[in-house]
């Protein structure tokens, strides 16, 4: 039975967690942020790998059907319109409201409106829907001297379409989204400026009529004959045609390997082609075939027309893990400020900030490596994410400066920063396509100089920020971590701190101290060198063990992206290792927080709290932190399982919950036992127990096994379902927890 004071204490600790903006951010991320995992997301990463002129200034593209009809009636000229998208007007352009009522409408054939195009003399881009292009008089199109790009969306692109297009000499771009092309594209060769052609299925799949594949070898030959062709995009969405269902054994030319083989032969002698976006790279075989094409066409830059879905999935997962881990670390940093209410000494040491920076660097590199490959280049990827981190660092530094002025609204600034960082991927969904196109080009390595400059700038910014933290670390660090506090706590702290910068004398003294710190900073590289050397010797502090274990966990986790084969196995492995990291990180970070505490605990124990209650508070506080973080990890894990494997059932969730509960108890025991021990052997032994238990619990949560083969993994999974597993983990957890508690009861905290 809990006493009133114990309940008050639990309430106080809970309040310190619930009142934190970062915790609210975490809840928001859980609630809304997982939208980035949705497969229907319009994120940059899910777009086509190539860009088209229609992506640029898409927001300025005219697509108001009612206005178009009205203008066709009044005959007004609109030179300000440069792009029209009929595909977005939908059925509205085919109907015309009459005065009899909204329910009745008469069909307005597009042919009645084709003369209206002449009212847009500066038209540069047009996207036609089905049957529209053939209804436009060729003279009308030819009169549009600024027309550079036309897109046609139709099930069958006929000779009439091609003839109409060939009447526009200013055309530079033609996009044909179709599943049937006419016998000949020869008329297009009369277009002197036609430099880019895109042939794709678009949103179309099948037709019940006879079709001629748009990717026939003879079509490719005619494309190769275009006098100015520099860029060609061939993106078939191969689907079995009627011939397949009729029993044909002839390979469809839209079949990916066939198309690549044909392209290799046809474009080998091309003199003008510079960029070829060709087929798919979803599998190793497809990637190898693409590599063969690239080797055959050395003068052509060969790229896949689609992103590697595995890479996309990996990048999504890596991004999610990176963001979550960053959030966990920030939460962990802020938890140092539990302060007197939780009866824990706040420790906001530079080691933590240094670790934070190191983790971000490692995670950024891992993320960049994860998404690099055939689609994205490593250098721009690194530059992009390093720039993001630099921006966050600058914002954080700015916030610290604002905080130094004593403005209390500065309290909310980091929360806004975190929200911006977390929701950046979602915001990208709403970015205009032209921006995505620019970013695409950048990420694919089109602008390496810009990437290098960006990377160098980001490195300088980060180095500068770290130096600032180094010079004024305590003062800035306090404010950098302040979001952990409640509004009331922060107000009291800000009013109590020695912020007397208006006082000239004290300002002068402060500047003098900063100068001294500058001198101290110059000696820091030597100290850093010593620190690294000590870390490799494992030193005396559990922090070093924790740091190494975290690095191992991260490496292990991200390494899994490159080992697995098969989509299903990859899903299992990714979920497994990401959950492993999610579970291990909180435990290890709390262990780091507790490191080296034994000597300082001698002061704690003399504060006016009974020994038993003090020990209980310490255990409760650590267990609360660990439990909260594991709960977050558990929810994230089940969301991942839900999205990737569609397997969470009530029994899975219940088993995982029981296992995670045991891990929280076990983790508390391990952390607090290691805190007191100066011996490295005991720390390593307990760390191993913690790591093995974490792996076991992870597998229980994901409900999968690990093994060299599917059968081995299944046997591990069956072993995990043994009735003795969960009680076994609880027994281990209970024993270690009890040992730790007894150890704390018996420990002499004084330095002798």
């Amino acid at each position, binding site marked *: 039975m809990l006493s009133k004071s114990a309940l008050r204490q639990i309430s106080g600790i809970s309040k310190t967690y619930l009142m934190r903006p970062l915790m609210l951010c975490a809840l928001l991320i859980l609630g809304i942020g997982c939208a980035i995992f949705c497969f229907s997301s319009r994120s940059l990463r899910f777009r086509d790998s190539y860009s088209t002129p229609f992506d640029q200034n898409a927001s300025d593209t005219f697509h108001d059907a009612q206005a178009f009809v009205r203008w066709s009636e009044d005959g007004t000229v609109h030179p300000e319109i440069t792009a029209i998208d009929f595909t977005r007007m939908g059925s509205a352009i085919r109907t015309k409201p009459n005065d009899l009522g909204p329910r009745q409408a008469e069909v307005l054939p597009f042919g009645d409106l084709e003369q209206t195009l002449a009212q847009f003399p500066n038209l540069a881009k047009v996207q036609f829907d089905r049957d529209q292009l053939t209804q436009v008089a060729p003279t009308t199109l030819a009169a549009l001297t600024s027309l550079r790009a036309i897109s046609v969306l139709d099930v069958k692109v006929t000779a009439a379409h091609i003839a109409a297009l060939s009447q526009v000499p200013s055309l530079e771009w033609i996009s044909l989204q179709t599943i049937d092309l006419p016998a000949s594209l020869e008329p297009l060769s009369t277009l002197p400026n036609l430099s880019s052609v895109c042939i794709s299925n678009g949103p179309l799949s099948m037709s019940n009529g006879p079709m001629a594949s748009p990717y026939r070898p003879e079509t490719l030959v005619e494309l190769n004959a275009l006098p100015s062709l520099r860029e060609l995009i061939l993106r078939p969405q191969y689907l079995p045609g009627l011939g397949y269902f009729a029993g044909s054994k002839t390979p469809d030319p839209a079949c990916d390997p066939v198309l690549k083989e044909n392209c290799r032969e046809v474009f080998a002698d091309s003199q003008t082609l510079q960029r070829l976006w060709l087929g798919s790279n979803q599998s190793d075989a497809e990637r190898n075939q693409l590599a063969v094409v690239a080797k055959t066409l050395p003068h052509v830059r060969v790229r896949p027309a689609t992103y590697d879905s595995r890479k996309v999935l990996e990048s999504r997962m890596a991004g999610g893990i990176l963001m979550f881990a960053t959030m966990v670390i920030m939460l962990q940093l802020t938890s140092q400020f539990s*302060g*007197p209410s939780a009866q824990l*000494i706040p420790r*906001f*040491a530079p080691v933590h900030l240094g670790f934070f920076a190191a983790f971000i660097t490692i995670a950024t590199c891992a993320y960049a490596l994860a998404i690099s490959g055939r689609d994205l280049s490593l250098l721009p990827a690194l530059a992009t994410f390093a720039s993001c981190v630099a921006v966050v660092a600058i914002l954080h530094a700015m916030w610290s400066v604002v905080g130094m002025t004593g403005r209390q609204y500065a309290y909310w600034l980091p929360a806004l920063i975190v929200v911006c960082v977390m929701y950046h991927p979602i915001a990208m969904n709403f970015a205009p396509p032209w921006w995505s196109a620019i970013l695409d080009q950048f990420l694919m390595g089109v602008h390496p100089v810009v990437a290098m400059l960006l990377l160098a700038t980001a490195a300088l910014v980060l180095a500068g920020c770290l130096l600032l933290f180094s010079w004024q*670390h*305590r003062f800035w*660090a306090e404010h950098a971590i302040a979001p952990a506090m409640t509004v009331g706590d922060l107000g009291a702290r800000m009013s*109590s*701190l*020695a912020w*007397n910068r208006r006082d000239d004398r*004290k300002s002068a*003294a402060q500047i003098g*101290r900063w100068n001294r710190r500058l001198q101290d900073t110059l000696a820091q590289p030597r100290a850093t060198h010593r620190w690294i050397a000590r870390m490799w010797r494992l030193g005396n502090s559990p922090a070093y063990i924790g740091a190494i274990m975290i690095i191992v966990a991260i490496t292990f986790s991200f390494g899994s992206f490159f080992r697995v084969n098969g989509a299903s196995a990859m899903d299992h492995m990714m979920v497994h290792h990401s959950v492993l990291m999610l579970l291990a990180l909180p435990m290890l970070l709390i262990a780091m927080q507790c490191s080296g505490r034994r*000597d*300082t605990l*001698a*002061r704690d*124990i*003399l*504060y*006016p*709290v*009974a*020994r*038993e*209650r003090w020990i209980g508070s310490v255990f409760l506080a650590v267990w609360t932190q660990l439990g909260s973080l594991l709960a977050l990890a558990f929810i994230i894990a089940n969301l991942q399982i839900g999205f990737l494997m569609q397997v969470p059932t009530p029994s899975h969730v219940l088993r995982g919950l029981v296992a995670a509960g045991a891990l929280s108890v076990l983790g508390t025991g391990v952390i607090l036992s290691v805190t007191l021990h100066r011996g490295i052997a005991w720390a390593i032994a307990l760390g191993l127990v913690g790591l093995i238990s974490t792996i076991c619990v992870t597998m229980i949560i994901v409900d999968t096994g690990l093994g060299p083969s599917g059968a081995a993994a299944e046997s591990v999974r069956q072993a995990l379902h043994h009735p003795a597993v969960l009680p076994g983990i609880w027994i281990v957890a209970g024993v270690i927890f009890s040992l730790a508690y007894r150890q704390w009861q*018996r420990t*002499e*905290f*004084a*330095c*002798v």
Partner: protein
Amino acid sequence: MNNDIIRTSGLRKHFGKNEVLRGVDLAIPRGAVVGLLGSNGAGKSTLIKCLLGLLKISAGTATLMGEDPWNLSAHTKSRIGYVPQVVHLYPWMKVRQVIEYTGAFYANWDHAWCRELLDQWDLDGAAWIRNLSTGQLQRLGLILGMGHRPDLYLLDEPAASLDPSGRRSLLRSLLEITEDREHSILFSTHITSDLERIASHVAIMGNGVIDYFGELDELKDSVKRIRVHSPVDLPPDFSVPGALRTEINGDSAIVAVAAVNDEVIDGIRDRWDASVDVEDLNLEDIFLELHDAQ
């Protein structure tokens, strides 16, 4: 018995095979200012830490304000002020911050007095802890140990790192504290002059046991140095009852005596027909005589 604020009986503490306290018997009355004297390694700091519950007693018993030191209640802890020999504070805090942080734990923290002590001891509240000298840290440790105006002060060589001015300020503060005879102080020190100024009692430790415990004035009244001048050479086995140390030089001798009275002096005069001069000793001399006697 209930009037004793600290009481130990047969208190022993060993670290492995090394026994540091070998049976300490001590009873400090409420309101006493006790100076704990002892050579290095005598066990003074260990005794204080055992009394605070920072170290667990190996054998014997001890009570602090009537409670077991290992399980002191919150109320009792709030009445204790401890200043360690080496003050470990958080280097990343400022002086004012660490005071406020510590004060947050105590309901009766006297902020005004702390500010007064900061001024009195010339400590800058905005200074970083890591920039403080050893003496300044010691002063800050004293403020942290005294800020909640405890009933019992346990000071482990509090003046060891202080300059003369700081020592004087500290002694003045301690004298003010003990004016009402309600507050008790147990402090270990090597500076006997300080102890003489404020202590009401003295405990002398040697080799893990209390060699002497009593009122300071009583100690000074009882331990004297006797100079004996005889017409004839004194024999090598010349001795005086209660002698702590005897130094014979021909016809004269210097004897430190633990309990001097007229009967002893008259006995020497009668037996050796000698002139006898009795000298008072200061505490340092007494400590040295007692130490040498061992």
